[in-house]
């Protein structure tokens, strides 16, 4: 089974960080995985997105026309990537920075005020991890051990952030349940 994801937002929102963490979680779960970053012409400051593919078999197509799940961390990326969601796929939208608006009726929407939830946790930069928590809830039950390992690997230079982000991950993970 192949699953594919696009994570999108603007520079500084941690798009590539959670993309890499997601790819690492899949790798630690013994899946074939690919991760492709994509910057706009303005490189590191502007729009940024990445595509992650995970599969039980050798990955052949590494860029796809449509994906199962899109995470949009702001309005621009919501507008841009809604068309990239497969029929019956899901888009997770940061409703703190994007208007709730359902222009397609063949996909599922999860609107979550990620920035506000992150502020509640005391660190605005954990909004991306909350999104990752939501994504993992609707995709896979990743082993908590692998999630922790992936965070430890990617944030190895910033130890204080590991706990905060894992906390945020679980806020996201439990978000749908609470609703």
């Amino acid at each position, binding site marked *: 089974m192949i699953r594919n994801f696009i994570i999108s937002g603007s520079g500084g929102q941690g798009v590539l960080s959670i993309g*890499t963490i997601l790819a*690492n979680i899949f*790798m630690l779960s013994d899946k074939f995985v*690919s*991760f*492709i*970053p994509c910057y706009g012409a303005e490189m590191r400051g502007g729009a940024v997105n990445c595509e992650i593919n995970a599969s039980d078999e050798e*990955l*052949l*197509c590494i860029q796809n026309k449509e994906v199962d799940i899109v995470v949009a961390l702001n309005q621009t990326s919501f507008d841009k990537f809604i068309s990239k969601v497969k029929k019956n796929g899901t888009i997770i939208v940061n409703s703190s920075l994007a208007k709730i608006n359902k222009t397609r009726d063949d996909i599922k929407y999860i609107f979550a005020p990620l920035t506000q939830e992150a502020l509640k946790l005391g660190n605005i930069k954990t909004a991306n991890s909350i999104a990752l928590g939501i994504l993992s809830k609707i995709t896979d039950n990743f082993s908590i051990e692998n999630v922790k390992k992936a965070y430890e690997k990617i944030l190895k230079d910033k130890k204080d952030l590991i706990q905060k982000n894992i906390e945020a991950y679980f806020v996201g993970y439990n978000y749908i349940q609470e609703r």
Partner: protein
Amino acid sequence: MNKELLKGNIAIAKAALNCGCNCYFGYPITPQTEIGEYLSKQMPANKLAYVCAESEIAAINMALGAASTGAKVMTSSSSCAVSLMQEAISYASSDELPIVIVNVMRAGPGQGYIFPSQGDYNQATIGGGNGDYKTIVLSPSSVQECIDLTYRAFYLAQKYRTPVILLADGLLGQMAEAAELTENPYPEIDNSNWRLDGAKNRPSREIHSLEPDQNKLNRHIVKLYQKYSAIEQNECDYEEYKTQDAEVIITAFGTMARYAKALCNHYRNKGVKIGLFRPKTLYPFPYKRLNELSQKAKIVIDIEMNMGQMLKDVRLAVLSNAQVAFIGKPVGDWLREEEMINAANNILKERYASI
């Protein structure tokens, strides 16, 4: 297995260091800049040679100088800037100097853009420099192969004393996959009989391409071609996928071959006897094996991310054994599975009603 999630560019840099690369010279250009960035941390820390050159011209010439000392030398660049290196590649071929040149291809012609592309097949395999010379060209299609073929590039460069091009593309350079930094499997090659390290207790040596004596120059070029013959004889490398009974053979190289493999799976499920032939060495091109396969085939479809550059080598291999068709797209978004299927359907529908 000790796998880690690695970008193609970083995998190339790590593999180079792992097999003893002690000199790197480069100039930034997207989409390969991470190679130089990664090495700028590692090499000075280990007192290895690393120069941010003033241009690609300077970088390849530094590489040429360094190679003459018997060092393990690499430079990396992309398409339009690899064009600037062609003169020195011609010199290094004549001088018989081992240099590994990484080209992480972007779109051309000219400046083009940073989209992935396979537009430098001709430049790499035919050569953009002057005179009778050939350059070994290796084509990875996964991050793991970026590692494996970097090792091989260094080995073949030393073994044959010749420049070797590792021809990756922007997608492979930028994408990350799980890969293992294996040990370098190749032996060290002794270079004490030709390197320039000062004429101590031996006659002085000279390395040059200039040769005012016509007979000597003729002999030199013939000698180079004997070497190329040996390379063609010994070093052809390719991957075959479901080719045993194939009536339809897809040919593709690099990242494009992965999509081509998906295309094979698609048609196998529809009962078409189809397989993939992927050259891993673009020079030497595996003509002989493709010719054998084409004798049992009805149609060969070449798929490339350009307007059909490997196509001429495919035709030379297939001759009149089978029909040759081409699917390609020069730049922009990668040629997607759906696009390939539409194009392939048009080619195959006359023969296979089932699709």
